[in-house]
Structure formats: C-alpha cells, structure tokens
C-alpha cells in the first residue's frame, strides 16, 4: 500500500483490466461486451487484457472470458464475496490494482458497477468517467470516430493531439479517450485521465459489441488467483437477502426489434400498449417506452429507452406516439432502421426516422400489423 502511487504512470504495466460482474454465479452479459472492447484497447496499447472476477465458487465461469479476448482472469474467490458489497469488492479490487497496476480499468455501468467504480477511484486517487459509450486509445481511430460522430470542424479534429493539463501541453496519444453523453444527451464529451492510473471508466451496458466466441482462446485463458485479505471486519454493510424480480424483465438490449410507445398513447394507455405488443410480436421484438410512459406508471422501469434508461440499437426501432426528446433519441438513434408514427408532423422524431408516417397511431398501427403479416406471408 505504501508503495502505491497512482501518479507514477510509468509503473502501470499491468495491462487493461475489466471488472467481470457476476450475479449468483451467472456472468452479466456486459462482462463479455467489455472484454471484447478491452481486447481492442489492449491491442492498441500493445499490452495484455485481464478480467477480474469476484465471487464464491465462480472459477468455473472464468475461462469463458478468454473466448471473447481475455489473456487471463484474476479469480478472487471468498465466501465473503458471494454477494456484492461495496466494502468487500472495493477492498479486494483496490488491493489487486495496487499489486498488479493495470493501466486501464473498465467496469460495466450497472447499478453495482456504478456503486463500485466511484468508491475504487476515490480510494486509489484516480479519475473515473461514468457511463461511457465510446472508448479509444489509438489517435487515428479516435479521430475517425470524431469525423463520423461529431460536428467538430475537420481541422479541429486533426489538431487534437494534446490537451492543456496543469498549464502544460500534454500528449494524449497513450491516454484512454472516454466519450460519453452529458446534459441529457445534448452534448458529448471526451474525457481523459492524463496524470493518474489506472484510467477508469464505467461503460454503458449494451453499447459495446460482443466479439465472436473462440473456444481455443477460452481454453488458453490463464487463471490467476491473487491473495485476498478480507475479513468480516472490513465489511460495514450486511446483505440480508437478494431477491430476483418475480416478473420476467424485458430484454431491450438484446432485442432485434423494439416497438416503443410514448405520450401519444395517453388517450387509451392499455389499448396503445396492446397495439405495441401486437406489432412487436409480428416483428419478433419487445416493447419499450419513453421516459413519460415510465414516469406516468404506464410501463415498468425496465422498459425505458433513453439517456436515463437503456441504450438500444436494434435492426428495427418503431416509435409510436413518441415526440423524440433528445433524452429519448440518445438511447435509440443508432438503431439500423427507425420507423416513427406520430400525429404531429413537426415532431423531432421525424428528423431521425428512416421512415415516417404522420398519423394517429391507433389507426395506423393495426393497418401496419396487417400489412407486415401479409408481406411476411408472401415471402
């Protein structure tokens, strides 16, 4: 501990790390996404990629991470780590970081990751960027991303090689560029952590793409077991129970088709949701909703698409009676094909829709369902 200095950047040669979250022995899908993304970053830095997995009797699920690109997995096994606790997980992870000194630490921005990340960053004295949607190290790749995803002038992008840090020019070529939405999605910002390591980021689930699984790589994945010094006395909270939601939650992130409803269903909420369900069924998808539908209690929170909900990029996204507030667009604008039905022809959703129909969703949707059924039958 006494030798750890987060500002001694040259000492951090431990590669790229990903916190691989599991719950009740099942890996969270975002762990595979982050390993896949971490592989890209490790290659750009010419270093190794490791997962760090905490829990009890979880060694059996570690090697699978290799199949998505991990060179190795630090497996921290203890009965005290069976359930997530802020104190237990923070201590074990910070101890491991102090010993092995990774350059980068990625954490899924789940309700657990967003509890753990800030506590670790505060203890280690390093920077943490929340809920990132894009990560780069290589400047060429980063600039290509900005050319496509920003409205910055080309000459401004070309000149982005240094940042002013404590009044001096700092070369950012080896820094992790962490890009995230701010102000409800109105602005994007790229953040760096130039003076401390590891550079830490929580990453929004569902945004990074999972790599194809490679069994040979999974077999070759190295398992490392760090020494754990954790006792009951280190834990200031007690988990009394962990309860799974009784109702099956909607899998917005994994869905190929999302049919979302907005305030436009207000005159007949039940009818509107039923139409969305029927359309989702013929398209093979699930139902989502704008923040208004969740705030009004029409749909449960797991259905929410948007900056404060989930980010989706399905093949087809249908927006029924959604005006298209920037908050909502931030969660769905990267969908492959966006279809919008809205009574108001000036609704902002039409600015990003591939296909728009200006009309009453209660009239249009039943006809659309029939037309799609017919088109599918004709194939």
């Amino acid at each position, binding site marked *: 501990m006494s030798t750890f200095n987060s500002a001694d950047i040259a000492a951090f040669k431990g590669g790229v790390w990903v916190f691989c979250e599991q719950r009740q022995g099942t890996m969270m899908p975002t762990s595979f996404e982050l390993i896949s993304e971490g592989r890209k970053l490790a290659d750009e830095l010419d270093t190794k990629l490791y997962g760090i997995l905490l829990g009890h009797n979880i060694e059996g699920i570690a090697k699978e991470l290799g199949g998505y690109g991990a060179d190795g997995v630090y497996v921290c096994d203890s009965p005290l780590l069976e359930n997530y606790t802020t104190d237990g997980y923070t201590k074990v992870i910070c101890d491991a970081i102090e010993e092995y000194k990774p350059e980068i630490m990625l954490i899924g921005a789940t309700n657990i990751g967003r509890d753990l990340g800030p506590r670790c960053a505060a203890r280690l004295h390093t920077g943490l960027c929340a809920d990132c949607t894009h990560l780069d190290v290589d400047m060429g790749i980063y600039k290509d991303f900005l050319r496509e995803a920003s*409205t910055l002038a080309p000459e401004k992008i070309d000149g982005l090689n240094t940042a002013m*840090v404590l009044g001096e020019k700092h070369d950012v070529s080896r820094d992790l560029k962490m890009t995230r939405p701010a102000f409800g999605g109105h602005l*994007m910002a*790229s953040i760096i952590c130039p003076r401390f390591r590891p550079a830490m980021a929580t990453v929004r689930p569902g945004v990074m793409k999972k790599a194809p699984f490679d069994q040979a790589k999974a077999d070759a994945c190295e398992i490392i077991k760090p020494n754990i010094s954790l006792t009951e006395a280190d834990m*200031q909270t007690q988990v009394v129970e962990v309860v799974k939601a009784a109702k099956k939650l909607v899998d917005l992130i994994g869905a190929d088709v999302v049919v979302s409803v907005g305030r436009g269903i207000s005159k007949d909420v039940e009818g509107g949701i039923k139409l969305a369900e029927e359309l989702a069924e013929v398209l093979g998808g699930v139902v989502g909703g704008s923040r208004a539908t969740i705030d009004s209690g029409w749909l449960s929170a797991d259905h929410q698409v948007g900056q404060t909900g989930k980010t989706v990029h399905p093949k087809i996204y249908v927006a029924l009676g959604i005006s298209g507030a920037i*908050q909502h667009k931030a969660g769905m604008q990267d969908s492959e094909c966006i279809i919008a039905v809205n009574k108001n022809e000036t609704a902002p959703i039409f600015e*990003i829709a591939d296909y*728009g129909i200006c009309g009453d969703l209660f009239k249009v949707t039943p006809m659309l369902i029939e037309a799609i059924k017919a088109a599918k039958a004709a194939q």
Partner: protein
Amino acid sequence: MKIIVCVKQVPDTSGKVAVNPDGTLNRASMATITNPDDLNAVEAALTLKEQTGAEVVVVSMGPPPAEGMLREIMARGVDRAVLISGREFGGSDTYATSQIIAAAINKIGLDEDDVVFCGRQAIDGDTAQVGPQIAEKLGIPQVSYAAEITKEGKTLTIKRMLEDGYMTIKVNTPCLITCIKELNNPRYMSVGGIFECYEKPYEVLDYNALKDDPLIDPATIGLKGSPTNILTSFTPPQKGAGMMLEGADKATCEKLAGILAGKHLI
C-alpha cells in the same frame, strides 16, 4: 441525531438546451432547478426527521445564487442550509467535488448517529459518482439506489434496487445513502415554511473556512485537483431525415411493409 442532505442546482435539461458554437453548454440561457433525485433525498431526510426529531442540514456546492434553491428547500422543512462556494473550488470533477463536500461535512460535524443522504445522480452530468466518493472520503459505508429505508436504533434497513431485482441491506450509522425516485414523493413547500425559510440559519463555507481540513489541498480540489480533464466536447450530427411516407392509410402501411421486406428487415 443529524441528517445531512447534499443537493445540486442543475440546468433543466428536459427543456430546450442551447449549445454555444464552441460546443459548450449555454448555461445562461437555461432555467435552473434542484436536481430531481436530490428532492427525493430531501424528502427521505424530512421523513426521518419526523420519526426521530433529528436536525436536517442541506448542503450544496455552487455559486452564490444557489441560495435561492437552498431557501426553497428550507421552506420544505429543512432546518438549516450550508452553501460551499469559492472560486478555488471551480472546475472540480467528481473526485475533487467529493473532497470538498466531505470537508464541509466534517466541518458541520458527522457524529455516531448521523446519516448523509444524496440523490442517485444529477441530470447535468449523470455520473452517480459524487455520493459514493463522499462516503469513501468520510470513511463511512454507503448504500446506493435506495428505494425503501427504515431505521431502528442505529441500524438502517435499505431496499437497494438492482436491474433484475433488489437487495436488502443493513447498515449502521454514520452512513451515506443515495436515493432514487421510487423512494418517495417529495413534498411541496408549505406557506409557513416559505415565511420561515428566510429566518433559518444560512451559512456560506468558502476556501478559508475549509482549508484546515486535510482533504482541502490545492492538489486535490478545483481544476488542478481533478484527475480527469475534458479533451473535447461536441454535438453529435443530426442523422439525416429519412423518408416521410405519404398518407396514413392502408396503402401507406403496405408500402412500408414492402420496403422492410425488400431490405430483408422482416
């Protein structure tokens, strides 16, 4: 017993947002509000005050005009307010912010049976980091995403939400809890409260008031003390508008279904 509630004044991002040509937010053109989750934290504190008779102190960091927000929160029933304000604190990221707020809480005094409430996250940054980081700097346990809170003696029992269910967690005071909107429905200001709020104690803590705390070091506060830096900020390009289909009848829907079939999307 004392309850400390941390709140933030934020631009209202749910309305129209103006962006300057250089890609920064035009804050001057936007209305400011109390961060929504923080109002749930205030309500949690007032509920606990009713049960225990505790004193409730609201704390915010920001420029002097945040006094208006703090007076309004006192009008809801909070006993006193503390504004942390000073140019030395400007430009702080979440790490530096948590150092400063933790120092202010030390100054107010955190005793054995005290509780700190925060909102889950602020709508300007959406980081959800400052609460947990304050807890770390104070060396007290945290429970985030609280949807139910009960207190018996020194022990709080908290329903902590997960995406796929919840955990029930027990924690002793002193501790820090971050609150979500499912926790409660914030009360309004009362007429009596509005009269009283201008009589209630209001204190400003500047750099000099906090500088003796070991957490307040030029290397750990403000822009210079922030581990993160903004490399650039930008607005995303508008996706080109697609095709508005003519009409809203059966033929329109058939045309759309035909396009989707042609693109092998269905």
